[in-house]
Protein backbone atom coordinates (compact mmCIF):
# COMPACT_ATOMS: atom_id res chain seq x y z
CA UNK A 1 0.00 0.00 0.00
CA UNK A 2 1.36 3.40 -0.98
CA UNK A 3 0.90 6.52 1.03
CA UNK A 4 0.83 10.01 -0.38
CA UNK A 5 3.28 12.24 1.42
CA UNK A 6 2.70 15.96 1.31
CA UNK A 7 6.15 17.30 0.42
CA UNK A 8 5.19 20.94 0.92
CA UNK A 9 6.78 22.35 4.11
CA UNK A 10 4.26 23.21 6.78
CA UNK A 11 5.24 26.90 6.63
CA UNK A 12 4.00 27.14 3.01
CA UNK A 13 0.44 26.43 4.16
CA UNK A 14 0.34 29.62 6.17
CA UNK A 15 -0.93 32.78 4.53
CA UNK A 16 1.94 34.99 3.40
CA UNK A 17 1.88 37.90 5.82
CA UNK A 18 4.01 40.00 3.51
CA UNK A 19 2.20 39.24 0.23
CA UNK A 20 0.82 42.80 0.08
CA UNK A 21 4.33 44.23 0.21
CA UNK A 22 5.68 41.79 -2.35
CA UNK A 23 2.90 42.68 -4.79
CA UNK A 24 3.60 46.41 -4.38
CA UNK A 25 7.33 45.99 -4.88
CA UNK A 26 6.72 45.22 -8.56
CA UNK A 27 5.35 48.73 -9.09
CA UNK A 28 8.03 50.54 -7.16
CA UNK A 29 9.26 52.74 -10.01
CA UNK A 30 5.91 53.76 -11.47
CA UNK A 31 4.48 57.25 -11.11
CA UNK A 32 1.01 57.62 -9.58
CA UNK A 33 -1.38 60.49 -8.95
CA UNK A 34 -3.85 60.33 -6.08
CA UNK A 35 -6.18 62.59 -4.16
CA UNK A 36 -5.35 62.86 -0.47
CA UNK A 37 -7.24 64.46 2.40
CA UNK A 38 -5.40 66.62 4.92
CA UNK A 39 -5.84 64.82 8.27
CA UNK A 40 -3.65 66.95 10.54
CA UNK A 41 -1.55 70.08 10.49
CA UNK A 42 1.34 70.91 12.80
CA UNK A 43 2.43 74.48 12.06
CA UNK A 44 5.14 74.40 14.75
CA UNK A 45 6.74 71.44 12.94
CA UNK A 46 6.05 72.85 9.47
CA UNK A 47 4.30 69.55 8.78
CA UNK A 48 1.06 68.48 7.18
CA UNK A 49 -0.26 64.90 7.14
CA UNK A 50 -2.47 63.76 4.26
CA UNK A 51 -4.05 60.37 3.65
CA UNK A 52 -5.20 58.79 0.38
CA UNK A 53 -8.25 56.56 0.00
CA UNK A 54 -6.07 53.43 0.20
CA UNK A 55 -4.51 54.48 3.53
CA UNK A 56 -1.26 55.77 2.12
CA UNK A 57 -0.03 58.42 4.54
CA UNK A 58 2.07 61.39 3.40
CA UNK A 59 4.02 63.71 5.69
CA UNK A 60 4.50 66.92 3.71
CA UNK A 61 6.63 69.97 4.37
CA UNK A 62 7.86 72.91 2.29
CA UNK A 63 9.28 73.11 -0.34
CA UNK A 64 7.09 70.20 -1.55
CA UNK A 65 3.91 72.08 -0.60
CA UNK A 66 2.56 74.76 -2.96
CA UNK A 67 1.84 77.07 0.01
CA UNK A 68 2.83 77.58 3.65
CA UNK A 69 1.55 74.92 6.07
CA UNK A 70 -0.65 77.42 7.98
CA UNK A 71 -2.62 78.15 4.80
CA UNK A 72 -4.00 74.59 4.62
CA UNK A 73 -7.02 73.26 6.50
CA UNK A 74 -7.98 69.82 7.79
CA UNK A 75 -10.32 68.07 5.35
CA UNK A 76 -8.83 69.90 2.36
CA UNK A 77 -8.10 67.77 -0.71
CA UNK A 78 -4.65 67.65 -2.30
CA UNK A 79 -3.51 66.01 -5.51
CA UNK A 80 -0.20 64.22 -4.95
CA UNK A 81 2.02 62.86 -7.68
CA UNK A 82 4.44 60.25 -6.35
CA UNK A 83 6.76 57.46 -7.45
CA UNK A 84 6.49 53.95 -6.02
CA UNK A 85 4.03 52.23 -3.74
CA UNK A 86 6.13 51.00 -0.83
CA UNK A 87 8.04 54.14 0.12
CA UNK A 88 6.49 56.71 -2.18
CA UNK A 89 8.69 59.60 -3.23
CA UNK A 90 6.60 62.75 -3.54
CA UNK A 91 7.16 64.50 -6.87
CA UNK A 92 4.48 67.19 -6.84
CA UNK A 93 1.65 68.43 -4.61
CA UNK A 94 -1.24 70.56 -5.83
CA UNK A 95 -4.42 71.82 -4.21
CA UNK A 96 -7.40 70.00 -5.77
CA UNK A 97 -9.38 72.34 -8.01
CA UNK A 98 -6.75 75.03 -7.51
Amino acid at each position, binding site marked *: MQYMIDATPASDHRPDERAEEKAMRKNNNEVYTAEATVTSIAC*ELDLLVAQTGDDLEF*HLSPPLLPDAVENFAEGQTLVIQY*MGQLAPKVLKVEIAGG
Partner: protein
Amino acid sequence: MLAVELLSSDNIITPGNAPVETNVPPNWPYSLCPNFSNWLPGDIVLFRSGRQLKDTAIVLAQACSFSPVTRAGCQFVHAAIYVGVGDIVDITASGVAKRSVWTYCEHHTTTVRRYGGLDALERNRIAQFALSLVSQGHAYSWSQLVGSKLIPGTEPQTDGLYCSTLVGLAYQKAAGVQLHARWFYKPLYPATLSEHMALDKVLLEWRPM
Protein backbone atom coordinates in the same frame (compact mmCIF):
# COMPACT_ATOMS: atom_id res chain seq x y z
CA MET B 1 33.88 38.14 0.79
CA LEU B 2 31.01 40.48 0.00
CA ALA B 3 27.91 39.82 2.10
CA VAL B 4 24.80 41.68 3.23
CA GLU B 5 26.12 41.88 6.78
CA LEU B 6 29.51 43.04 8.05
CA LEU B 7 30.55 40.99 11.07
CA SER B 8 31.84 43.01 14.02
CA SER B 9 35.62 43.47 14.07
CA ASP B 10 35.88 41.32 17.20
CA ASN B 11 34.29 38.43 15.27
CA ILE B 12 36.40 38.31 12.11
CA ILE B 13 39.62 36.35 11.73
CA THR B 14 40.83 37.25 8.25
CA PRO B 15 39.40 39.35 5.40
CA GLY B 16 40.15 36.63 2.81
CA ASN B 17 41.15 37.94 -0.62
CA ALA B 18 39.31 41.29 -0.44
CA PRO B 19 40.80 44.18 -2.45
CA VAL B 20 42.55 47.06 -0.71
CA GLU B 21 40.10 49.76 0.45
CA THR B 22 40.92 53.09 -1.17
CA ASN B 23 38.46 55.24 0.77
CA VAL B 24 39.85 54.95 4.30
CA PRO B 25 38.72 57.67 6.74
CA PRO B 26 41.54 59.62 8.42
CA ASN B 27 42.51 58.19 11.84
CA TRP B 28 40.66 54.89 11.24
CA PRO B 29 41.69 52.92 14.34
CA TYR B 30 41.91 49.35 12.95
CA SER B 31 43.97 47.42 10.43
CA LEU B 32 40.89 46.54 8.35
CA CYS B 33 38.25 48.89 7.00
CA PRO B 34 34.69 48.40 5.68
CA ASN B 35 34.30 48.88 1.92
CA PHE B 36 33.42 52.56 2.30
CA SER B 37 34.09 53.11 -1.41
CA ASN B 38 30.77 51.29 -2.01
CA TRP B 39 28.80 53.29 0.60
CA LEU B 40 26.92 56.45 -0.38
CA PRO B 41 25.86 59.46 1.69
CA GLY B 42 22.25 58.97 2.76
CA ASP B 43 22.59 55.17 3.08
CA ILE B 44 20.81 53.74 6.12
CA VAL B 45 23.17 51.92 8.48
CA LEU B 46 21.69 49.33 10.85
CA PHE B 47 23.24 47.44 13.73
CA ARG B 48 22.37 44.03 15.10
CA SER B 49 21.71 43.36 18.72
CA GLY B 50 24.84 43.15 20.89
CA ARG B 51 25.21 41.72 24.36
CA GLN B 52 23.60 44.58 26.26
CA LEU B 53 20.36 44.27 28.22
CA LYS B 54 19.01 47.34 26.40
CA ASP B 55 19.44 45.53 23.05
CA THR B 56 17.52 42.51 24.34
CA ALA B 57 14.65 44.77 25.41
CA ILE B 58 14.49 46.35 21.92
CA VAL B 59 14.55 42.92 20.24
CA LEU B 60 11.67 41.72 22.43
CA ALA B 61 9.62 44.87 21.83
CA GLN B 62 10.08 44.61 18.06
CA ALA B 63 9.29 40.88 18.11
CA CYS B 64 5.89 41.77 19.65
CA SER B 65 5.07 44.39 16.98
CA PHE B 66 1.79 44.34 15.05
CA SER B 67 3.82 44.76 11.86
CA PRO B 68 5.06 41.50 10.27
CA VAL B 69 7.93 43.53 8.78
CA THR B 70 9.14 44.73 12.18
CA ARG B 71 8.81 41.23 13.63
CA ALA B 72 10.90 39.81 10.76
CA GLY B 73 13.82 42.17 11.38
CA CYS B 74 13.64 42.25 15.17
CA GLN B 75 17.36 41.49 15.67
CA PHE B 76 18.35 44.96 14.42
CA VAL B 77 18.38 47.45 17.28
CA HIS B 78 19.85 50.72 16.01
CA ALA B 79 19.65 52.88 12.87
CA ALA B 80 21.77 55.75 11.57
CA ILE B 81 22.40 57.77 8.40
CA TYR B 82 25.74 57.52 6.61
CA VAL B 83 27.09 61.00 5.92
CA GLY B 84 30.37 60.03 4.20
CA VAL B 85 34.05 59.63 5.18
CA GLY B 86 33.27 56.73 7.53
CA ASP B 87 30.85 58.78 9.64
CA ILE B 88 27.21 58.33 10.61
CA VAL B 89 24.66 60.61 12.27
CA ASP B 90 22.45 58.94 14.87
CA ILE B 91 20.53 59.72 18.03
CA THR B 92 21.09 58.03 21.35
CA ALA B 93 20.15 58.94 24.92
CA SER B 94 22.85 61.62 24.80
CA GLY B 95 21.27 63.31 21.75
CA VAL B 96 21.99 63.61 18.00
CA ALA B 97 25.68 63.21 17.14
CA LYS B 98 28.10 62.51 14.31
CA ARG B 99 30.17 59.43 15.07
CA SER B 100 32.58 57.10 13.31
CA VAL B 101 31.05 53.86 11.99
CA TRP B 102 33.79 52.26 14.12
CA THR B 103 31.81 53.24 17.26
CA TYR B 104 29.39 50.44 16.42
CA CYS B 105 31.06 48.06 13.96
CA GLU B 106 33.75 47.22 16.51
CA HIS B 107 31.21 45.18 18.49
CA HIS B 108 28.04 45.02 16.37
CA THR B 109 27.21 43.30 13.10
CA THR B 110 26.39 46.02 10.60
CA THR B 111 24.18 46.12 7.53
CA VAL B 112 23.43 48.92 5.05
CA ARG B 113 20.22 49.71 3.15
CA ARG B 114 19.81 52.03 0.16
CA TYR B 115 16.76 53.73 -1.33
CA GLY B 116 17.31 53.32 -5.06
CA GLY B 117 15.33 56.27 -6.40
CA LEU B 118 17.68 59.05 -5.23
CA ASP B 119 20.20 61.10 -7.21
CA ALA B 120 23.50 62.40 -5.78
CA LEU B 121 21.97 65.78 -4.92
CA GLU B 122 19.15 64.18 -2.91
CA ARG B 123 21.61 61.88 -1.12
CA ASN B 124 23.72 64.86 -0.11
CA ARG B 125 20.61 66.73 1.05
CA ILE B 126 19.70 63.80 3.33
CA ALA B 127 23.23 63.74 4.77
CA GLN B 128 23.24 67.54 5.22
CA PHE B 129 19.82 67.44 6.90
CA ALA B 130 21.10 64.80 9.35
CA LEU B 131 24.19 66.91 10.07
CA SER B 132 21.98 69.96 10.64
CA LEU B 133 20.15 68.03 13.40
CA VAL B 134 23.50 67.59 15.18
CA SER B 135 23.97 71.34 15.41
CA GLN B 136 20.35 71.86 16.54
CA GLY B 137 20.93 69.61 19.57
CA HIS B 138 17.76 67.48 19.41
CA ALA B 139 17.12 65.26 22.43
CA TYR B 140 16.14 61.60 22.40
CA SER B 141 12.45 61.01 23.05
CA TRP B 142 11.95 58.09 25.43
CA SER B 143 8.26 58.97 25.75
CA GLN B 144 7.78 58.60 21.98
CA LEU B 145 9.70 55.35 21.90
CA VAL B 146 7.87 53.74 24.79
CA GLY B 147 4.46 55.22 23.92
CA SER B 148 4.55 54.08 20.31
CA LYS B 149 5.42 50.55 21.41
CA LEU B 150 2.80 50.27 24.14
CA ILE B 151 -0.19 51.95 22.52
CA PRO B 152 -1.28 50.34 19.24
CA GLY B 153 -1.71 52.86 16.45
CA THR B 154 0.37 55.53 18.16
CA GLU B 155 2.92 57.02 15.85
CA PRO B 156 6.16 58.72 16.75
CA GLN B 157 6.02 62.46 16.05
CA THR B 158 8.69 64.10 13.97
CA ASP B 159 9.78 66.32 16.86
CA GLY B 160 10.11 63.33 19.20
CA LEU B 161 13.13 61.64 17.71
CA TYR B 162 14.64 58.25 18.23
CA CYS B 163 17.03 56.49 15.88
CA SER B 164 14.58 55.31 13.17
CA THR B 165 12.42 58.44 13.21
CA LEU B 166 15.58 60.48 12.62
CA VAL B 167 16.15 58.39 9.47
CA GLY B 168 12.49 58.72 8.43
CA LEU B 169 12.49 62.48 9.06
CA ALA B 170 15.67 63.04 7.02
CA TYR B 171 14.27 61.08 4.05
CA GLN B 172 10.93 62.86 4.24
CA LYS B 173 12.21 66.41 4.67
CA ALA B 174 15.24 66.23 2.38
CA ALA B 175 13.96 64.02 -0.44
CA GLY B 176 10.17 63.68 -0.07
CA VAL B 177 10.51 59.90 0.52
CA GLN B 178 7.80 58.50 2.80
CA LEU B 179 9.41 55.42 4.38
CA HIS B 180 6.51 55.11 6.86
CA ALA B 181 3.64 55.52 4.35
CA ARG B 182 2.23 51.97 4.53
CA TRP B 183 0.62 50.47 7.63
CA PHE B 184 3.18 47.66 7.78
CA TYR B 185 6.01 50.22 8.01
CA LYS B 186 4.46 52.13 10.91
CA PRO B 187 5.94 53.05 13.29
CA LEU B 188 9.48 52.96 11.90
CA TYR B 189 11.92 50.93 13.94
CA PRO B 190 15.39 49.61 13.08
CA ALA B 191 13.75 46.24 12.38
CA THR B 192 11.26 47.87 9.99
CA LEU B 193 14.06 49.54 8.05
CA SER B 194 16.07 46.32 7.86
CA GLU B 195 13.17 44.48 6.19
CA HIS B 196 11.75 47.43 4.20
CA MET B 197 11.14 46.17 0.67
CA ALA B 198 11.76 49.59 -0.90
CA LEU B 199 15.33 49.51 0.43
CA ASP B 200 18.09 47.56 -1.33
CA LYS B 201 20.81 45.66 0.50
CA VAL B 202 24.34 47.04 0.05
CA LEU B 203 27.06 44.36 -0.08
CA LEU B 204 29.74 44.77 2.60
CA GLU B 205 33.14 43.39 3.49
CA TRP B 206 36.19 44.11 5.61
CA ARG B 207 39.15 45.18 3.47
CA PRO B 208 42.84 45.64 4.13
CA MET B 209 44.06 49.24 4.03
